[in-house]
């Protein structure tokens, strides 16, 4: 039994290691400062993915700005206030939302945002990603808040704290590191999304700082380069993949650092 489970564990870990090493091996060759800072150029002239890095960060910030507060609020509602049938309904809806294929989310946002505004935009991309984030954040928040011992709430209530202050001042901070993990999972998940962005943020060959304009992202850039017929772009796609993975890792470390248990 130990041997079998141990072997499976080794297999799972080695899968991750193989992926990481292969990407690093393939990508490291095209990686240099120009590649990180410049915008794309025609085939044969080099160029970089600076605009896509900025675009991905903008999209992540946008989606977090929408998705985090809503997701956390839903999680608080489900764990602290939601009772009875309405709460079960909300929970069911949230779970269903988690299962919606991301391409569907993309098409939906295309229909309700992109079509009326007549063009692709960073904002539409952010909203599409936020829709993917909300259920993940909501359910993790709910689970994490449920882990906060009841006697901590009672301790605060016994001091004359109103319910909302108990939730915001005691329960949320006690669950903060767990909630941050959930948010991280959601951010990591959406930072790898390509399909919903094809119809919303669309992609761009230039640096863009306007939220109502199409914006580049690493994933869409990787997609475009990977399906191109040029070896140079293939190499750049590998390098962009390496950058994307490093970016996710970096965000993870930074958030963990700031939400680590202080007390």
């Amino acid at each position, binding site marked *: 039994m130990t041997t079998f489970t141990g072997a499976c564990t080794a297999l799972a870990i080695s899968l991750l290691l193989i992926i990481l090493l292969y990407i690093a091996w393939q990508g490291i060759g095209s990686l240099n400062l120009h590649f990180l800072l410049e915008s794309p150029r025609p085939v044969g002239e080099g160029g970089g993915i600076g605009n896509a890095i900025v675009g991905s960060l903008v999209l992540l910030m946008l989606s977090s700005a929408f998705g985090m507060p809503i997701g956390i609020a839903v999680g608080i509602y489900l764990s602290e206030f939601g009772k009875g049938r309405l709460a079960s309904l909300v929970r069911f809806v949230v779970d269903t939302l988690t299962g919606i294929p991301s391409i569907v989310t993309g098409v939906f946002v295309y229909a309700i945002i992109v079509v009326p505004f007549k063009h692709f935009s960073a904002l539409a991309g952010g909203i599409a990603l936020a829709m993917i984030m909300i259920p993940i954040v909501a359910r993790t928040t709910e689970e994490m808040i449920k882990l906060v011992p009841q006697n901590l709430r009672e301790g*605060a209530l016994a*001091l*004359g704290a109103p319910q909302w202050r108990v939730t915001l001042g005691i329960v949320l901070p*006690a669950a903060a590191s767990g909630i941050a993990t959930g948010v991280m999972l959601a951010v990591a998940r959406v930072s790898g999304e390509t399909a919903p962005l094809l119809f919303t943020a669309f992609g761009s060959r230039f640096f863009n700082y306007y939220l109502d304009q199409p914006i580049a992202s690493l994933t869409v850039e990787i997609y475009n380069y990977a399906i191109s017929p040029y070896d140079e772009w293939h190499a750049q796609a590998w390098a962009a993949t390496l950058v994307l993975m490093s970016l996710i890792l970096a965000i993870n470390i930074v958030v963990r650092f700031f939400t680590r248990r202080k*007390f």
Partner: protein
Amino acid sequence: MTTPTIAAKFAVPAQRGAPPAAKEITTKITVRDLDFYYGRAQALQKISLQVPERIVMAFIGPSGCGKSTFLRTLNRMNDVIPGTRVDGEVKIDGRDIYAPGTDVVDLRRRVGMVFQKSNPFPKSIFENVAYGLRINRITANRQELEGRVQQALEGAALWAEVKDRLKLSAFSLSGGQQQRLCIARALAIRPEVILMDEPASALDPIATSKIEELIVDLKKQYTIVIVTHNMQQAARVSDTTAFFLLGKLIEVNPTEKMFTAPDEKTTEDYITGRFG
């Protein structure tokens, strides 16, 4: 079993006993015909009881007899448990705390509580004690806040041990210190009544004796109601003892009498260890 045997087992220190006669005794809490239900299950039946001001009253009884439930009706802490219901009357200073329109937040400010398991907030030692002061906006400035925190920690006999590490996590304290921190937290907002739900049940004998000394000391300023499983503890710290069994209040008497010559046969049987 005869009375002298009980007396020998639960020798009550002579200096206490009945509440000091010089002080005028006023009734702090009056409970009349209190019924309590968890859903359909009735946990308390027709409890009537008076708690005089500035004494320690102990609730004793076997597990599940309703003593903790009763304690929690006194600051409406049971409100947070879904499906509970209260009938009857609980008056504190003559005001019915279950009357419609009662400010529960204000009630809990006046009736503090210390729990069985110490439950410090995930904050620093200082912030734990300051919490009640902050949320109730009791202090006007930082200096006053620090003063009140110090007083509360002194009141809970903890100041000397923590004064150099107020900024450290409350979880860095030992179990007994954490419980005294929770007492300090309750004292900081200067309640009139302090409810204690088996405050020493998770502590070692030394920490327990510290808490007990503290309780006797706090009696000078506060009315204290303590639930305890430990009858020796009830005998050591309380002036009056109430015995609960199966959701009913069997007997209330001065502690000395309770442990030497109880009125009820059931009380005597419980105290002498025939059941429970």
